[in-house]
């Protein structure tokens, strides 16, 4: 399925500055695999060594935090927006 992925500022070095990129996949896992293939290295900033979403990064499919739905198995229907929101502490 064709989806859009919102990239936070701190990860835009991987996407050539793009704030939003096109993604592909039926589940979040597939979308991230394709994302890392398109933008090598970005996957490791979102997922840890065991392949889980890092604890200081939140991923939303639409408005829902996937930590409270099916995690990386969350379905990503066509046209949905996926947001990657890392913790920042500046103030």
């Amino acid at each position, binding site marked *: 399925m064709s989806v859009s992925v919102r990239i936070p500022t701190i990860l835009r070095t991987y996407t050539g500055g793009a*704030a939003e990129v096109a993604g592909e996949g039926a589940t979040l896992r597939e979308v991230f695999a394709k994302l890392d293939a398109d933008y090598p290295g970005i996957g490791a900033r979102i997922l840890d060594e065991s392949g889980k979403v890092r604890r200081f990064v939140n991923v939303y499919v639409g408005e829902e935090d996937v*930590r409270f739905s099916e995690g990386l198995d969350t379905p990503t229907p066509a046209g949905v927006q996926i947001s990657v929101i890392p913790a920042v502490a500046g*103030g």
Partner: protein
Amino acid sequence: MSLPPLVEPAPELTVDEVRRYSRHLIIPDVGMTGQKRLKNAKVLCVGAGGLGSPALMYLAAAGVGTLGIIDFDVVDESNLQRQIIHGQSDVGRLKAESAAATVREINPLVNVVIHNVALTTDNVMDIFSGYDLIVDGTDNFATRYMVNDAAVLLGKPYVWGSIYRFDGQASVFWAEHGPCYRCLYPEPPPPGMVPSCAEGGVLGVLCASIGSIQVNEAIKLLTGIGDPLVGRLMIYDALEMKYRDVKVRKDPECVLCGKNPTVTALLDDYEAFCGVVSDEAQAAAQGSTITALELKKWQDDGENIYLVDVREPNEYDIVSIPGATLIPKGEFLNGSALEKMPQDKKIVLHCKSGARSAEVLAVLKSAGFSDAVHVGGGVLSWVKTVDPSQPTY
């Protein structure tokens, strides 16, 4: 979701107060009762920096009766690009004192309480207990987790905001009515993974964008109007000029506010919890840290060294140490920089303040460059001790 007002109304407003707050009083939702609630409110702002500046100024103007300001830092010239509560003549002055002076100038009716101390596990509960609501304007993860934990343990609402470059986030954490900060971010990032504003920069006016959301939410909570930002995260992108909000759920497994909490008191050490410098970096820097003066001497003596600046290109443009080659930290983390390292020279690393160079030092040591060293205090220390004619940032 609407919530009851946090504060009972003060008995009355004086004639002066009615004149001053008339534009609030004629809003039906606020009115006399709402303004009396603000008058009776006690709000603490943690940090008088980027977010704290607009937050304190608008809270003061709005007529919050008691405003606490906690900050241990002094005003630096590099603060003035965004910390609008301070001015040029305040450079070198304690931030809490400088901020209090501005608050008094905006609204002499406000009772200002100055906490000219660093917030620690020893004083946070005592200080917070005197306030109805906490506004967070701090700049690091360790303090944010400590503020959250104290707010949850004391049952206080915690109006949170965070900024980086062009991105802002804001929410209201209040365990009695919704999630806490740990529900949103259960763990802090490992050191070096997320740059601070001092490393990555921040657009000055972004502070106002997020700080004003925080004040807006504080006023709503105090007076009990509108839909508070409880259980929602507001995300702002200044470049695209977009606000979006996403749901934040209360995590039933939250170690602090979940069903079976395992954190029932403050942690002993939030710095350690957040690992300001990673264990690896600390170990690598042990016995392999030189001063800027030592570096200068090595250069003057013609020692066979290869000096590497691991900061970003725009930082290098601001100020750099003569003879340094720029190779940003990221190139060491992904391994591509290692092949550029000479085998026949002693490698000397530096960054802005010594944290990033320590992380890179750990990478180099594990790659076999056992005699590599880094400069403690980085280029800031170089400017201070070797070449004060250069700028700092």
